[in-house]
């Protein structure tokens, strides 16, 4: 089959072809979903490079398990689940590695779970675009707040869907999103105050 035809092929057909071992069909699946997967993995892992690497592991895992996928279901929620599982598995593995070596713990940077309050010096605030400030504030949120807010705002999931995806209860989802926004607002406040004063 020609490459152009794969691009025009519907999702179910692509999955069926990939299940039969068609690598081109799978490549097309990667093309369709890799951006979302890399972005999500980046949020969980805390950096784009790591997001990129883990996203590759995600697609390798999808290729290995594609035969077991039920074509009557939507593909992306399954991919998202694999992405989240792969990322947390990797984070757990790293945590285990850190625990085994005390020296490494001392040398490594603080865990991404620890909120970094010193993400930008106040003096620079007025010089930086608001978009960048929001981005920076978001990047430095604790990982569980960041991922929950990401799933809500970018992936557009309901609280119930987030709870299901992250295997937590709805109350936790609600409080995480609330805390994420609160922390973001507090960080933005300093920026907005500085820009208000200067204008």
């Amino acid at each position, binding site marked *: 089959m020609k490459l152009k035809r794969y691009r025009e092929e519907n999702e179910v057909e692509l999955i069926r072809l990939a299940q039969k071992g068609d*690598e081109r069909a799978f*490549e097309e699946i990667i093309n369709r979903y890799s951006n979302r997967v890399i*972005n999500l993995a980046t949020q969980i892992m805390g950096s*784009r490079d790591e997001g990129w690497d883990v996203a590759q592991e995600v697609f390798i895992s999808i290729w290995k398990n594609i035969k077991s996928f039920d074509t009557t279901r939507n593909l992306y929620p399954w991919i998202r689940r694999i992405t989240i599982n792969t990322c947390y598995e990797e984070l757990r593995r790293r945590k285990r590695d850190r625990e085994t070596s005390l020296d490494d713990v001392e040398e490594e940077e603080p865990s991404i779970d620890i909120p970094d309050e010193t993400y930008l010096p106040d003096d620079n605030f007025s010089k930086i675009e608001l978009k960048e400030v*929001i981005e920076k504030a*978001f990047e430095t949120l604790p990982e569980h707040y960041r991922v929950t807010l990401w799933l809500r705002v970018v992936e557009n999931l309901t609280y119930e869907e987030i709870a299901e995806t992250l295997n937590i209860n709805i109350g936790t989802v609600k409080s995480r999103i*609330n805390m994420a*926004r*609160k922390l*973001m607002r507090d960080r933005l406040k300093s920026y907005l105050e500085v820009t208000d004063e200067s204008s």
Partner: protein
Amino acid sequence: MNHPSFEDLSSFVDKELPDWRMEEIEKHIEGCPACKETLETMLLIDRGVRESYREFDTHTFAVEVMEKIRPAPVRRYNFRLKLATIGLAISLIFGVSLGIVRDLYRGNLDRGKQQLISQHNIISSGDMGVIFISSR
């Protein structure tokens, strides 16, 4: 009506409140600049988060993944090379063994010949002895 909590405003943004509560908060916001400001900040944050979504080079990404999935051609070459080496080794062993067997066979033949000759000599000398004894 009291000011809605930050958590309620957050759920309001996400449309995760019952309809009656949504309407209640909506009405409150219209007349409350403080809550309106909080709400606007939340919407600003959400927009910023959405804008942090990046477009990656999906083509390069797909190529890298497929390289890991497909069996590497180098490996196939190595496998062929391995197969050829094993074949060569077997032929060598077979060839050398054949040579040894042939040499052994030839050696045995020669030894047999020599034995026959020496036996013949003994018989001859024995005959001579017989001849010598009988002549005495």
